[in-house]
């Protein structure tokens, strides 16, 4: 059933006409034109589609539009502020923490959601936080290094 769903996207209010059970990722990519969020499995298994909903990392492939009504959604496109990269983006860029880059948006979003709560995380806490995100190219070691250094840059030096 067509419905109107309103939420805040990357700081700005948006309204989409779509069934409430439509998955958020399709609305983001198709209706709203934000293709930085990727699709890898459509089943909550790979993390490529990770976005933040009210600050929590969520797989947008398995999150219905109805669930985000009235909430705040943050995607990779909303991270940099006035052209200045977010600390996690900056660290991924510096460490070359990607190869093909297809997992990267999801990795950065998952890391950001985690570090905001816990910038002083240990390496094993970071591993645990990132466990739901797959990378086929094997950029894992650099991703962990990048998340660790982003945490430090955010004032979480241990």
């Amino acid at each position, binding site marked *: 059933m067509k419905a109107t769903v309103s939420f805040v996207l990357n700081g700005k209010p948006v309204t989409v006409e779509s069934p409430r059970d439509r998955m958020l990722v399709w609305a983001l990519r198709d209706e709203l034109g934000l293709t930085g969020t990727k699709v890898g499995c459509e089943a909550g298994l790979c993390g490529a589609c990770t976005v933040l909903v009210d600050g929590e990392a969520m797989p947008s492939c398995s999150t219905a539009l109805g669930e985000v009504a009235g909430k705040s959604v943050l995607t*990779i496109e909303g991270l940099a502020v006035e052209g200045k990269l977010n600390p996690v983006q900056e660290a*991924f*860029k510096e460490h070359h923490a990607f190869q093909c*880059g*297809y*997992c990267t948006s999801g990795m950065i979003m998952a890391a950001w959601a985690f570090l905001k709560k816990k910038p002083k995380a240990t390496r094993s806490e970071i591993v645990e936080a990132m466990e739901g995100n797959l990378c*086929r*190219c*094997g950029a894992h070691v650099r991703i962990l290094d990048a998340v660790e250094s982003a945490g430090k840059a955010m004032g979480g030096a241990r």
Partner: protein
Amino acid sequence: MRRRDFLESVAAGTLTFFFTTPLGSAPIIPTRPGAYPEDFNAYLKIAADGRVTCMVGKVELGQGAMTVLAMLVAEELELDPAKVDMVLGDTDLCPWDMPTGGSLTMWHTAPVLRGAAAEARAVLLRMASRAMGAPVSDLVLKDGAIWMKSAPTRRTTFGELVQGRKLERHLGKVKPKPLADCTVIGRRVPRKDALAKVTGAAKYAGDLRLPGTLHACILRPPAQGQTLVSADTSAAERVPGVRIVRDGSLLAVLHPQPDTARKALALVKGTFEGPEPDVDDARIYQYLVDKAAPGQRVVISRGDVAVGEKRAATVVEAEYRNAYESHATLEPHVSVAQWEGGRMTVWSSTQSPFVFRDAVAEALKLPGDKVHVIAQFVGGGFGGKLAGPDAVEAARIARQVPGVPIQVAWNREEDFFLDGYRPAAVVKLRSGLDAGRGAITFWDSTVAGVSQGEAELAYEMQTSRYQAPTVSSLHPLKVGAWRAPNAHTNAFARESQLDALAAKAGLDPVTLRRRLITDARLLNLLDLAVETFGWEPAPGPTGRGIGLACGAWRQGLVVAIAQVSVDKATGAVKTERFLEAVDVGLVVNPDGARQQVEGAITQCIGQALSEEIRFKGGRILDKNFDTYLLPRFSAIPRIQVVFADTGTSVTQGIGEPPVVPVAAALANAVFDATGARVTHVPFTPKRVLEALKQVPAK
């Protein structure tokens, strides 16, 4: 290169490493193709504002082609690599090239591009010399400008000299700068794709969103090899906005929304026909051996194996296996096609734009110049995106809806179902060591499922026999090239076997290899690996869980050392530490090369421990990442990478070599930890437990 020529070159063996055929021949070192244009203008454009654009038929798969190729141009033209704009994989704009695979970019394309840039530099200097009335020896070229040493205020720029025109002058072969003068090669350079990839701005084929795009979801048979007989589309057609397109046995449901197209497809009822092979993932090994048996022939033979066996004091006989493995790129296959003005444009996630172009042209019976393939950022390849079935599907559908962009994006289940897997394989080895424990007296190898490609390494084996089947259609499932095809299967068998021989003879595995290695480069690399890791010689199993293996891809050499812990109760293997020492000649982009090695180690931990396609007949049972297990963060060890300092030797590619010895090193580490020899890749907990049961009680 037209399709016919392409196929001819395949037949001639020049491309055999891309398409793993179960034929018995070892991969032939490809001759350099003659199809690269001589005119450097094909690769380089200098705009009126002086900006340099480089066009190459390779693509950016994540391996860093965009950055390393820009480095080569920047080196010769004395620019910051950031100032070289790269156009990759556009069949209209870029000169023909082979697929991006087989570690060919640095080996084939790089010297051509470097030569083109060197010639362009020489031409620019001559033009400046004429314009300024100064000898070339008095000119300095830097950052897009040229000035006189004797009068530094007298300067001109690339833009002024060229004025947006094509460079007409040619000087033939010009030598690139000597290595000692290089300032870009060998330096850490920021990846050119970094900003786009960390901001989500990087466009992959599925991100295009051309106005009016229809998303096409295709009806698939339940089993590989089956075709559509009839279909009832009435329920799907009742979904508003749905359109059905049929072209022979291809049936697609089109809709402006990808998810709606997918849901409508579920309403289509199809009947299919076609035989299903009577085999599954458990019986596949015997199936391959039986099917290969009548066609086995000797492909390499030295000395008399029977005589060699009589001289052996220690004999080991074993059968090594590996399962079908998927490429499982995180980005599934995706192409967008549009038929307009008598021309088909296809935007693809592709490793081989020119192969895709020819495949589309052939399928649609169009001349090659009526097809334009444009590669986008590719979300991983690994040999899985060489052929273009998705591009052909999109083009066939697009041909029927003129003007409308058609996107075919496989979902994960389709990607597993339609992939051309790393072939399952069986390698039977029987070999012996002399009483002095310094010589292999015989080595007898028979494969089924792969070729004997890269089966040999620089080990002294005077008496050896290698057999491989001539039968070409051995596999019940579709197979393809999976990063370093054949080589990882054969290295797993060979290096496990050497380890087993060493253990049986009570010899340290490194000591045995030192006695056998005949090549100075490999010996140096072994020393480098062993020293960096801190290997302490001892016959296995030592209980430390450390294993070593060597491998090669063409002239690229790798020595890998793994350290594992094994949970004897569950059979789970945890990789604690992994080191690779790599010799690929001159390393142009050290950080990029390191990334390739780190990635290969990580990826192959999955290959070794968990990745396996399960199937029954033509039905693929793995449909998503819940059962097909890629390594996650908790599986990643501490990784160390060291490069041999090989001075100026020819640059080999680095995509393949670091893949080759990973599973073997891990298997040898499992043996060292437990005394159990795992011979079946992946060595899942269940297989490790089975191997543990075979260990004789002390």
